[in-house]
């Protein structure tokens, strides 16, 4: 699998909500790329626009939400797809595309697909796992119906028996006994519901799975189980994941790359190693220090003063400046853009502290320091051998 090719490219996308008292910019000029087989973590607090962004990418937003600009380019993989799905249900209708046999991958703008193309594109290429498993499953249909209707819609040539067999296989894949196929959602436990949603998401072997806080409602042990299996499946099947959560400490463990959102804007993107070792944005820094540590000396922590802004009254300039310890005059007036701080590290930050023209003195020393204490005081040999550490795929 070619790990370094892009599968999704989001270019300066904006989402507005038309509210009675003015327009709300829920997502403001956000760009990022997702590589094949990569786990991209999207972190932010409530109201940061992280979910809206996910819904915008999959074009699931409903009025009054409106995508006002931007493009979402999807790079379709040609070779790996089985033919019968591609020929009949190619969401790209351009004929020369089907004829092309070269390796060149031509991107498709998801935002420009027609309704019909969109229907074919959905789930086939991009699946979603919703936040609340209880609410994402139709309470009056059993699992089999909900699993096979997606097959029915996208693979009409499959026979009924084949569909049922595929459904059983999927359940087995996520660790549910296939005899639960006829169960209704209310008969399943929270963990099983979330597993079955993942099974549905895998039904068509999509290229991308967007997960919107998929395990927030679950207990840590179950959450860990599911994530472990999910990442194993990812390695096995080769899809990419956009993982949305407010739990940065979890994200650092499972994601390859992390993007931090605040008030609808992307404030920092970095590999998770870089982020945990030297977070650049004061907000990221504050977030990292909002999670008490399990080991090492106990320290007084303060979190971030104030609370996230109301999207209807976002402070001018950098939206974080009222809560920022390092804010200076430029922060109140100029909106920061993402700066590439270091081409090699691929770490981007939207903060005037790193803008040499505005802040010639350079970033404060305390921010550049190693942020997290070493974990050496923790005895892993003792008693923690029951759950595996989630394997992370290193960026090559």
């Amino acid at each position: 699998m070619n790990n370094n090719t892009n599968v999704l490219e989001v270019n300066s996308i904006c989402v507005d909500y038309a509210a009675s008292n003015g327009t709300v910019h829920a997502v403001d000029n956000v760009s990022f790329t997702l590589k094949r087989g990569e786990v991209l973590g999207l972190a932010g607090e409530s109201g940061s626009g992280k979910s809206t962004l996910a819904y915008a990418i999959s074009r699931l937003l409903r009025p009054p939400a409106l995508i006002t600009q931007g493009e979402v380019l999807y790079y379709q993989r040609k070779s790996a797809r089985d033919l019968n799905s591609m020929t009949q249900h190619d969401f790209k209708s351009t004929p020369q595309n089907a004829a092309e046999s070269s390796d060149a991958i031509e991107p498709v703008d998801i935002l420009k697909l027609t309704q019909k193309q969109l229907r074919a594109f959905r789930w086939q290429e991009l699946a979603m796992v919703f936040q609340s498993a209880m609410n994402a499953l139709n309470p009056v249909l059993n699992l089999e119906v909900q699993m096979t209707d997606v097959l029915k819609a996208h693979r009409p040539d499959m026979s009924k028996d084949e569909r049922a067999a595929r459904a059983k296989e999927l359940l087995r894949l996520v660790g549910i006994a296939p005899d639960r196929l006829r169960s209704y959602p209310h008969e399943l436990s929270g963990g099983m519901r979330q597993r079955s949603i993942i099974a549905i998401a895998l039904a068509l072997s999509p290229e991308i799975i967007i997960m919107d806080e998929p395990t927030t409602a679950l207990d840590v042990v179950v959450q860990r189980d599911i994530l472990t299996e999910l990442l194993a499946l990812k390695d096995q099947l080769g899809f990419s994941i956009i993982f949305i959560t407010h739990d940065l400490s979890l994200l650092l463990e499972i994601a390859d790359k992390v993007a931090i959102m605040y008030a609808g804007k992307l404030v920092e993107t970095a590999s998770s190693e870089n982020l945990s070792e030297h977070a650049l944005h004061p907000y990221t820094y504050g977030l990292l220090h909002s999670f008490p540590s399990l080991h090492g000396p106990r320290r007084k922590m303060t979190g971030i003063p104030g609370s996230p802004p109301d999207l209807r009254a976002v402070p001018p300039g950098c939206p974080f400046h009222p809560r920022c310890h390092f804010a200076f005059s430029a922060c109140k007036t100029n909106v920061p853009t993402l700066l590439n701080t270091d081409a090699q590290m691929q770490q981007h930050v939207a903060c005037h502290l790193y803008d040499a023209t505005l802040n010639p003195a350079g970033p404060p020393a305390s921010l550049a320091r190693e942020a997290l204490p070493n974990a050496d005081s923790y005895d892993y040999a003792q008693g923690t051998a029951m759950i595996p550490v989630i394997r992370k795929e290193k960026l090559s």
Partner: protein
Amino acid sequence: MSAEKHTNGTTASIMNEAITRNEPLSPGTILLEAEHIRKDFPLGGFQVGKLGAQRAVHAVENASLTLRAGFATALVGESGSGKTTVARLLAGMYVATSGSIRHRGVTVRARNEGELRAYRRHVQLIFQDPFASLNPVHTVGYHLGRPLRIHGHIHTDEEEHQAILSLLRRVSLYPPEQFIEKFPHQLSGGQRQRVAIARALAVQPEVLLADEPVSMLDVSIRLDVLNLLLRLKNEEQLGVLFITHDIASARYFAEDTLVMYAGQIVEGGPSDEVIQHPKHPYTQLLLSAAPDPDRMKTHTQQSLAIPTKVARSEPPSLINPPQGCRFHLRCPKAMPVCSERFPARTDLGAGHWTHCFLYGDESTTSKEVAAPSPLQTNLQEGA
């Protein structure tokens, strides 16, 4: 009534700027003790043909804990483990099926509304969801004024106004005058939780039972509220029960930690002891599953086999819980005796204790502990 007897010191409160207790508690005074409390919730409806055996949710079994002035005890467990029930039992909202609760050494008996109110003057509950625990139709001032009036801490409107202002200052809501007339929906989550804390303080309690006080708040403001509670605990020598599902914040907040699984408290002791040297298999599982960014660095490629028995299994139903130790169905180290009865408490030194046969049991001989039983090895291989 027992609680009444002990209030004499605190009821005759004198108004001053900050409502404080007349006699500050000395740190370490035992305020509230629960001994072997148990709570069954009978399931409603007619149980036809059940031969009298009423079905019930066995929410809490044999829970004991002590709250001391100026100290916090954390109760850690998954949702549905019964930790909220423990808090509500201690708050007098439920009556325990069996077991006793002692307030300053006197057994609490709340037989009627009046006695209950007298008890609640000392023990107050902070709810998880600040969006739900404030009445949307009432102002902040109303929320704080009611407990002041009910418990006779104020007598005139002016006193009420001053007392409310001082409460708001105590929970760091500045400027307090601006908050009195606000409605809950005009406040942010963190501000609401502060108001909820202020309401509990208005009663002038000795004990605060904080039921996941920050889990509904945004990540960046959780610590603020947590620090506020810490400050109140330290300054006013409150006894705090801190209920959480996040074992890291238990370590941050509380001197002692108790771990609860499916209605049973399985391990307890000083927080650092419990968290750095977990003994009960469940505590170990919980710790290894907790998100931990540090692990990323130390164990990047390490992968350990997960016993399938643990994976893909979830906590048992409390309507029909397993006999004995309720964790035995998922425990990789389970022994036959585990399904027979719940192990007694084993002291491990330094105040650390657990309920697990692996570390001995008053009534079992130590040889069972010494070597893993054949069954245990089988289980691990079979997995």
